[in-house]
């Protein structure tokens, strides 16, 4: 070659591999290219993944409804559709301004979240949204089934679930766990149908309106209890707290009262 090469790229490649400039340069280039590939794949594929997750949640809701005894017949009567309602959790009524389509945007705004004080924060969430999307099944005018999404801080991370309540808003009709990261073989058994099968028929409050629901240590002995999971005390407690919090005054409480008054 006559004279030094003017192309900086070729001069860079011609550096000895062990030189500091080339080591740093190659490290930087490789990381940059990899970063672009990884972020590109994540961004491009996210819409499909989100759609998948939504479809999966829909499938779970349908499975939950089908699992409730007598529910498929009821579904056929009402045209086989659940009505979707966005609730204002503060008042317990349907939200005036937020629709299912705009719910995501509304929840992205921090102003639509309420911070929970340590005493009332049974579920360990720190804050709860002001709006929640629930699914209602009607028999004539009355609500015969309500599917209420809930979440709680579990042993390894957040647990998302959907609880189905019968028309009396006191008897559980079923539970479906939609997302969790509990220990496989122990806490992860909350997603097994055999464990969830214990929920239907369990009552939440006694005649005086006192919250009695509990996940038992061992086998359930009262109508307000479901069986615990051996070896997964923290997960069992999390589920108990989840139900107690979300059916309590800071959760769906106002909504449940409104349904009982026949306002829905």
């Amino acid at each position, binding site marked *: 070659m006559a004279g030094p090469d003017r192309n900086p790229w070729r001069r860079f490649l011609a550096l000895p591999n062990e030189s500091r400039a080339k*080591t740093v340069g190659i490290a930087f280039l*490789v990381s940059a290219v990899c970063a672009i*590939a990884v972020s590109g*794949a994540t961004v491009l594929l996210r819409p*499909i*993944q989100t759609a998948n997750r939504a479809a999966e949640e829909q499938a779970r809701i349908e499975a939950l409804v089908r699992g409730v005894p007598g529910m498929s017949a009821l579904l056929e009567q009402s045209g086989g559709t659940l009505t979707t309602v966005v609730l204002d959790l503060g008042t317990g009524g349907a939200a005036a301004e937020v629709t299912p389509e705009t719910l995501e945007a509304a929840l992205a705004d921090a102003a639509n979240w309420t911070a929970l004080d340590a005493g009332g924060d049974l579920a360990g969430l720190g804050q709860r949204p002001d709006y929640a999307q629930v699914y209602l099944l009607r028999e004539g005018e009355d609500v015969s089934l309500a599917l209420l999404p809930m979440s709680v801080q579990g042993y390894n991370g957040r647990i998302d679930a959907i609880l189905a309540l019968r028309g009396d808003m006191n008897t559980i009709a079923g539970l479906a766990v939609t997302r969790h990261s509990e220990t496989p073989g122990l806490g992860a058994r909350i997603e097994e149908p055999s464990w969830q099968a214990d929920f239907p028929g369990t009552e939440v409050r006694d005649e005086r309106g006192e919250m009695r629901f509990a996940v038992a240590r061992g086998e359930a002995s009262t109508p307000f209890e479901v069986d615990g999971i051996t070896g997964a005390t923290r997960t069992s407690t999390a589920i108990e707290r989840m139900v107690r919090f979300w059916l309590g005054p800071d959760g769906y409480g106002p909504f449940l009262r409104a349904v009982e008054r026949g306002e829905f």
Partner: protein
Amino acid sequence: MARSFSFWPTLTEPLIRQNPVTLQILGLCSALAVTTSLATALTMSASLTVVLTLAAGIISLIRRHIPTTIRLIVQIVIVASLVIVIDQVLQAYLVEISRALSVYVALITTNCLVLGRTEAYASHNGVVPSMVDAFGNGLGYSLVLTIIGGVRELFGRGELLGRQVLPLAEDGGWFTPLGLMLLAPSAFFLLGLLVWAIRSVLPEQAEAAEHVPPATAEPAE
């Protein structure tokens, strides 16, 4: 390149004779964990083969410019990025299988098989030979996974790819599923039997004993 490259031997050697799993005993963790059914085993095999081939190609392409001091981390970064991309693709298009494979796709990064091939072969050979070698090794891994996955699903559930092959006793057939086949130990047993079978056919694969037991002392008369 010192050695001349011939296509077929490079591709077919890793299938049986130089099989990465049964001869070199590499990549066992995933091989044991994802073989409870044939479908997951096949998906895992395909993912690993794609990652391995692409990684070998990329690393071989830039092999003359990777500084020796940081070569391992450069290789791992490339492999890890490919794995994340594959994982994202699986999550988008094969949701069910991606859930069944759970963390094992992400763990391809730390699969000794991948780093072993990129370090031992791709960083010293041209792009085409490296990719052929990687593809061959991927096929060798896939072969073992497919056999073990097939046997475990067949005898554990009487199914192949989710389709009932052996009529179950509880449905009026004659086959009682072997629950053990779905548990991790059965993968060890099957792999051990497979290694034994291969080394019986190809005795040159058997390793020399590392310790020789002392000859039993004759009792003094």
